């Protein structure tokens, strides 16, 4: 495997002094006020609040009243490069991630052409080394062209830096095909991430099957299209002792299947998106195409099960499934619109507003789940501790904003939370030791 699985563009190692920050890192068990010194991109010192003075070459940031967290990690984003740069590119997508407090992300391979060969991965990583604001990694395809028929050269792809493999956007329809990929994993390693959907059940569907789809006359996607496929693949993973990651869980039955698989000791992990944690089929009633995603928004019962799964740990982490689409692609009738919502810039604020403030989840648990994705792909988890590389996000937990009111860092604006009043503003993001995002108004205050 390549030495450095994540790549990012050139950044200047930061020298910062964040004074009187409320530092919260659930893994380091820190939840108190500190002065935090970052030197040369590393966390150099954690000291009692108000005790450190800035050196002449340090930027002094008054972080009093603000919360300093380990930067978030998103194991599921679509950066649309190569081939769909009108939706997003490496620069705009990682800029959106930085603005959302993310210090790392993993891009999916459903691009044009599909990321399914080592030369393509090499050129993409080269491009990321010039353009990416934050470190990004790539999951190439399991099967060539996402066609579900032939394996990609998984071993060579791993040598070239593949973090794992996925046919995201599509299921691996054939159990025999997936089994071969799981067997081949013994040679090359790499987490295999699975989009679970039985197309014979979901065919023709554009939203969750239920009362709302019946009322709107929209084709329904039944929850069992996800849960039955997930059960099949969990059993295959158990049988082959393979390491798999189930993407974007959306319903009660899937949470139950994952709980069962984990109870068997199978090496499975899973993720859930902010939109599945916060929205339901009721939000589709207006046929707003920003509410059209795959898997679709399901029922309130499903939503609650996902929140509970995340809380008690059946669901390992939060992933945005950031899926940008151009305005004219989404400004069409619901059935014609492509699936997907952007999510990087709103993930933390939406979950903080929707789950932490009402007392459903504790902030420290949310932070844990928003950083847990890295370890699932054998990457170091960002930590706030002396000697660690600086991966930090500074947040004003009282800061209110309306999602999208000042536009987006992403090239696309198809965010399901657009127009909602959210609480929790990202002020500053440090990724791999460099300042990658600074909220405009905040930089003035800080100076």
């Amino acid at each position, binding site marked *: 495997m390549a030495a450095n699985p994540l790549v990012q563009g050139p950044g200047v190692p930061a020298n910062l002094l964040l004074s009187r920050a409320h530092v919260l890192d659930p893994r380091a068990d820190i939840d108190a006020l500190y002065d935090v010194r970052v030197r040369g991109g590393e966390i150099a010192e954690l000291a009692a609040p108000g005790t450190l003075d800035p050196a002449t070459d340090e930027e002094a940031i008054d972080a009093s009243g603000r919360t300093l967290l380990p930067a978030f990690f998103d194991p599921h984003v679509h950066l649309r490069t190569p081939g769909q740069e009108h939706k997003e590119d490496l620069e705009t997508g990682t800029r959106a991630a930085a603005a959302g407090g993310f210090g790392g992300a993993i891009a999916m391979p459903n691009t044009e052409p599909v990321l399914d060969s080592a030369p393509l991965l090499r050129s993409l990583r080269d491009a990321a080394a010039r353009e990416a604001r934050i470190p990004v990694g790539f999951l190439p395809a399991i099967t060539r062209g996402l066609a579900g028929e032939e394996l990609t050269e998984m071993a060579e792809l791993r040598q070239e830096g593949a973090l794992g493999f996925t046919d995201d956007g599509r299921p691996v329809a054939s159990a025999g095909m997936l089994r071969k990929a799981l067997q081949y994993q013994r040679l090359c390693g790499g987490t295999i991430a699975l989009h679970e959907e039985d197309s014979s059940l979901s065919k023709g569907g554009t939203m969750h*099957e*239920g*009362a*709302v*789809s*019946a*009322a*709107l*006359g*929209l*084709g*329904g996607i*039944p929850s069992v299209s996800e849960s039955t496929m997930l059960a099949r693949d969990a059993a295959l993973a158990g049988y082959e002792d393979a390491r798999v990651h189930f993407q974007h869980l959306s319903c009660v039955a899937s949470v139950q299947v994952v709980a069962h698989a984990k109870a068997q000791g199978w090496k499975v992990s899973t993720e859930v998106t902010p939109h599945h944690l916060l929205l339901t089929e009721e939000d589709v009633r207006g*046929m707003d195409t920003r509410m059209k995603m795959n898997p679709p928004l399901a029922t309130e019962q499903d939503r609650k099960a996902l929140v509970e799964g995340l809380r008690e740990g059946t669901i390992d982490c939060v992933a945005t499934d950031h899926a940008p689409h151009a305005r*004219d692609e989404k*400004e*069409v*009738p*619901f*059935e*014609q619109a492509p699936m997907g919502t952007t999510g990087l810039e709103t993930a933390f604020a939406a979950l903080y507003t929707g789950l932490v403030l009402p007392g459903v989840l504790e902030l420290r648990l949310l932070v844990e789940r928003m950083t847990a994705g890295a370890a699932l792909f054998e990457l170091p988890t960002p930590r706030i501790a002396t000697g660690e590389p600086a991966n930090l996000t500074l947040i004003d937990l009282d800061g209110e904003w309306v999602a999208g009111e000042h536009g987006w860092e992403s090239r696309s604006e198809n965010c399901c939370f657009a127009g909602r009043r959210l609480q929790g503003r990202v002020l500053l993001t440090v990724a791999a030791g460099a300042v990658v995002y600074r909220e405009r108004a905040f930089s003035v205050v800080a100076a």
Partner: protein
Amino acid sequence: MNHLLSIEELDREEIERIVAQAERFAEVSDREIKKVPALRGRMVLNLFYEASTRTRSSFELAAKRLSADVVNFAASGSSVEKGESLKDTVLTLSAHKPDAIVLRTPWAGASELVSKWCGAAIVNAGDGKHEHPTQALLDVYTLKRSRLGGIDGASIWIVGDVAHSRVARSNIIAFQKLGAKVTVAGPPTLIPRGIEALGCEVRFTLDELSKADVVYALRMQHERMSESFLPSLREYASWYQINGRRLGPRQVLMHPGPVNRGVELSGEVVDSPQAVITAQVEAGVVVRMAVLYELLAGAREPQSDPDRPENVKQLA
């Protein structure tokens, strides 16, 4: 009312007002000269993305009887086939300043979208499998003038392919708003899961059909066989066809047309005294006159009025 996008958004009073207006226009249809000048100088644009003979010609007749100008725009053979988006087509056609656009598309919610993009009054003439509000209004009108005399308290069975039917959805809503008890019946593969949330009852056989005051049969489309919703038309007909054996003498039989004789209806019932299928077609014109009149007469400024300052400027 600015648009007619769905039955869902109408209340009972609005439905009754349109039906009453249609009754006044029915009198016009019986005259030798069937035209009134109510919408003279107004332009109605028929924009149809799906094949339709009856609905389109019914809207065209309705507009002409109100003395409006009518332009027909069919998606086939037009810029749409060259890949133009719905929005671009609507914006382009809006340059002609239609006062109303009658829109049929295969996509749910398309009429509502279009209503946000242009100033014309939008009439939904069918949006995918979502709604077909003028069909429901003409069915209400027809029932009111049928032997039944009204809808309040009536038991209405809607039979057939409910899953793919916008007529079913609009009628379930309309009939219930007017006080009827609605039951949908059909093969389990063609009754959408969750439909009972609209307030109707669901049956998978016609065993209790005799309880119905009104039997509303839906069109069975042949492509449903190839999609495996049904094993065969023969089996469908033997379980769900409305025929002389199933239809009682006091029941009213309706169908949105076009009828597949020998499939959803037997030939004998199509021609039976219980059937009001031709009355439904007649009702189509007067109800659509009432809808256009409701939307365009009165408060709304004509988009194509040559005396409007911006239009004068363009002409100069």
